[in-house]
C-alpha cells in the first residue's frame, strides 16, 4: 500500500528534503505553500494524509483542517513543525490532526508516522507526550472528574514511555501489550486531547510553549 500524501509547507527547501527522504511506501501527490492554495488542492486530490506545517504565511494549519475536514472526512492530518507555541500545536490537534511530530524527526520515523496516521492511529512526538502529561497532570478533582478529562494509569504509562523516546513496539514489549493496544491507548489520549474541556489544557497551552 502506497499512501498518497500532500505536503503543506511554505519552505521550499524543507519540502524538497522531505520529498526526497520519504520512503517507498509514500507517494507525494501534491504540494502547497499557503492555506489558500492548500484547501482546494487537498479537496481535489483527496489524499490519505496531509503533512501540515503549523505556521503558514496566510494562516495557521488548523484553518486548513477546518476548511477541508467537513468535505473530506477521510483525509488524515499530521502536524509537522519546528518549535512552536503550545497553543498553536494544541489548536491544530484540537482541529482534528492525528498527531504532531517535530521537523527534526528521522526520515524513516516520519514514513512510519505517515503510515500510522493513514490507518487512523495517532502519533505523538516525545515533546507532545511530555506536554500532554503535564497538561493532564492530576489537578482539581472537582473539575477533572469527567472521563475525558483524566488519563488512565495505563495511558499515562504509555505516554511516559513515548516521552522517554520509546517506539510503539518497544513500549508494547516493555508493558507486555500488543502494538495494537499501545496504538489504541495513544488514540484514546488523542481523543481526550481533542475533546477534553479540562481547563488546565487551555491554561497550560497559553502559558507554555513547546520548544
Amino acid at each position, binding site marked *: 500500500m502506497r499512501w498518497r500524501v500532500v505536503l503543506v509547507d511554505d519552505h521550499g527547501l524543507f519540502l524538497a528534503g522531505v520529498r526526497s527522504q520519504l520512503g517507498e511506501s509514500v507517494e507525494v501527490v501534491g504540494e502547497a505553500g499557503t492555506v489558500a492554495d492548500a484547501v482546494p488542492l487537498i479537496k481535489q486530490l483527496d489524499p490519505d494524509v496531509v503533512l501540515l506545517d503549523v505556521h503558514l504565511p496566510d494562516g495557521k494549519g488548523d484553518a486548513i483542517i477546518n476548511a477541508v475536514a467537513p468535505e473530506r472526512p477521510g483525509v488524515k492530518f499530521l502536524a509537522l513543525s519546528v518549535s512552536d507555541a503550545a497553543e498553536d500545536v494544541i489548536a491544530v490537534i484540537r482541529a482534528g490532526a492525528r498527531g504532531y511530530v517535530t521537523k*527534526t524527526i528521522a526520515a524513516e520515523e516520519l514514513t512510519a508516522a505517515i503510515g500510522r496516521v493513514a490507518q487512523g492511529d495517532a502519533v505523538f512526538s516525545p515533546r507532545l*507526550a511530555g506536554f500532554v502529561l*503535564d497538561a493532564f*497532570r492530576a489537578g482539581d478533582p472537582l473539575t477533572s472528574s469527567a472521563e475525558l478529562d483524566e488519563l488512565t494509569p495505563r495511558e499515562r504509562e504509555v505516554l*511516559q514511555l513515548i516521552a*522517554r*523516546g520509546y517506539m510503539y513496539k518497544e513500549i508494547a514489549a516493555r508493558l507486555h501489550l500488543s502494538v495494537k493496544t499501545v496504538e489504541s491507548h495513544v488514540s484514546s489520549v488523542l481523543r481526550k486531547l481533542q475533546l477534553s474541556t479540562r481547563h488546565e489544557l487551555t491554561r497550560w497551552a497559553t502559558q507554555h*510553549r513547546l520548544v
Partner: protein
Amino acid sequence: MPLRSFTTSAEGRALAGVCAGIAQALGVDVTLVRLIFALLALAGGAGIVLYLALWAWSSSDRPFWAILLLLVAGSTLLGALGVSDRGIAGIVLVAAGLALALRQGGSFRRDAPLSYGGIALAGIGTVLLLQSGTAPTRLLAPGAVVGALVLVCGPLLWRLALERDAERSARIRTDERAEVAERVHDSVLQTLALIQRHAGEPRRVATLARRQERELRGWLYAARPLGDDGSSLVAALSAAAADVEELHGVRIELASAGDAPPENAIVLAAREAMTNAAKFAGVEEIDVYADVADDMIAVFVRDRGAGFEPASVPDDRQGIRESIRGRLERAGGSSVVTSSPGAGTEVELRLPR
C-alpha cells in the same frame, strides 16, 4: 471643545426646540429642562437670555453672540442672586477671559495671543473679585487664576508629554532592533560563518546548526536569554544537552513535563549519562525526558545503542559509579541503569523534592 454638543430638536419643541434638544442630549425629561429654564427666567430674566444664548449657540455659526448672551445671562443670574455689581463684573471678566484662553488653547498652538488676552481679562476680573467685599466671590479669584494658567499651559505641556512619549517609544524600538541585531550577529551569523567554513564536515555542520536552533528556540519561544542555564531545571538540562551535542556530535531530543528550579546534582548526573551515551552507545540520537512531579524529579536518558552488561562494568569505571550514582545519592536521590548488549541503555535518575 469637550462640551456635549446638542442641536435644537424639531421633535416635541415648544419654541425653538432648545429645551427638547438639551433633554435629548442629556437623556432627561424635557419637562424638567423647561422647569429649570422657567425658574431661571424668574431670576431677573436670566433663563430667557440663557435660552437665547443656547439657541444662538446651536443654530448659528457665530459663537461670539452666543458667548455674549451667555455672559449676559450669567450676570443677570448673579445679580438676581444678590452678588454686587463689582463682583458680577469680575466674574464675567474671568469667565470671558477663560473662554478666550480655552478657545485658543484648544487649538494646541504655541503662539496664542488670544490666550494672553484671555489671561489679562481673567486677571482684571480677579482683581475686581478680590476688591469686592463678599466672601464667596473672593474665593473664586485664586481658582480663576489657576484655571487660566491650566488652560494656557495645559495644552502645551500635554503636547510636550506626547512628544516625549513618541520619542521614548522610538528609542525603545531602536534599542530593541539593536538588541536583535546584536543577538543575531553573536549567534546566527557566527554560526552561518562557521558552517560555511566547515562545509566539508557534515557532522560538525549538523552540530552547529543544532546548537544554533536550540539557542534561537529558547530565545524566541521560551523567553530565555541566550546561554542561560540557571533559571530552571529544563533550561539547565537543555544547556547540558547542547554541550554534549557539541562535544560529541550527537543529537539530543529533550522532552519534559513540568519544570522546577535547577537541581545541580541531577543536572550533572544527567549530563554524565548523556556523555556516556554519546561516547559509548554509537548512536546519533539520544532521548532525554524530564518529569517534574510535586514530590519527585525524574530524568530519563535513553539511547538505542550498543548497550552493555551492567555486571561486567569494571569497578574503576568512574563515570557511572561516582558521577551518576554517588552524586545523586549524596543529594538524597537514586539512579537505575538498565542495559543489555544490543538493546540500548536507559539511565533513570530520581531526586525527591
